[in-house]
């Protein structure tokens, strides 16, 4: 057995390179399916949030260490980064409705 094989080093390559290699191998990516919502709830949700106050994309650059903290907290509290950020904004006086605070992944 060669020395290399006895060491057992993981692949030290970027996520992008790894993703590309995995994609080229034709390996599927399992994505958590969204829970089906009843038609009544769907209508209410649309009426309450999407039409009146729809979610929009808003991209900012933040320090990597802060992003790491957000993700760790989200994992610890089983919630989303979006929820934590909106909670923080609400705490410093921004007008964020309770409906907007709702974790969208659970709807």
């Amino acid at each position: 057995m060669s020395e290399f094989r006895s060491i057992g080093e993981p692949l030290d390559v970027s996520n992008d390179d790894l993703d590309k290699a995995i994609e080229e191998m034709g390996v599927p990516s399992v994505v958590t399916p969204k829970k089906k919502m009843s038609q009544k709830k769907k209508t209410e949700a649309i009426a309450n949030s999407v039409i009146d106050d729809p979610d929009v994309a808003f991209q900012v650059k933040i320090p990597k260490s802060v992003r790491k903290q957000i993700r760790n907290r989200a994992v610890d509290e089983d919630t989303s980064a979006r929820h934590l950020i909106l909670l923080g904004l609400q705490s410093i006086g921004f007008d964020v409705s309770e409906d907007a605070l709702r974790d969208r992944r659970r709807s």
Partner: protein
Amino acid sequence: MIGPKIISAATSKGGASKSTTIGSIAGAFAKRGASVHVIDADPKLAVSEWMVAQDPKVENITSVAVKPDDFSDYLDDQDFSVYDYVLIDVAGYNDKTLMLAMARSNLILVPLQPAATDLRHALETVKAAKTLYKNFGKSPLYRLVLSNIDHLAMQEQIFIFKEIMRLKLDRFNTPLTHRKPYKTMQLTGYPPHFQEQTLSVSKAVAEVDMLIAEIDKLIGNHDQRKVA
């Protein structure tokens, strides 16, 4: 700082004893004082549920359930330097999470029970790991772990052993045999090393110790690494 050794249990077949293997070796590492972190990326959440069931908790083992969608980010962002071992359990199907776990591991354990289906999936998993590593000019360190082996050598069991030899697959010499303590772990959450001592538990502990001795030979003992 000496980083942890990352070990994943990977095969595209469900019910091949991935979680049992991870849970058992986590207990063995913890028993000898190593700090162990278990990442449960299997949506079935078997290992993390076992950890939750422990009352009182086993010291030295922490666990976290990570959704497949968040797995890559979790590996990137988490500080693993405080652990001696990071053990990854993934779902029993061929997907990106399985590939990522294998890519980031020092050692890939490929558990299989003595059945032709398990062997086929194990073979496919090993091939996938080799292909992935080959893309970057490297070779994965993997070992098959035979589990749920019956004390009586049935025909299919003999066939599987012969096939593993014929296919020249690397495997650990120590199998995990069909024993009650592994089933007990699924109920109480305690790995064999932390169960009440009985003859059956002693035998399970002995074979898991033999298995991690083989793992030590491949990737080193955590105490030796600290001294080094």
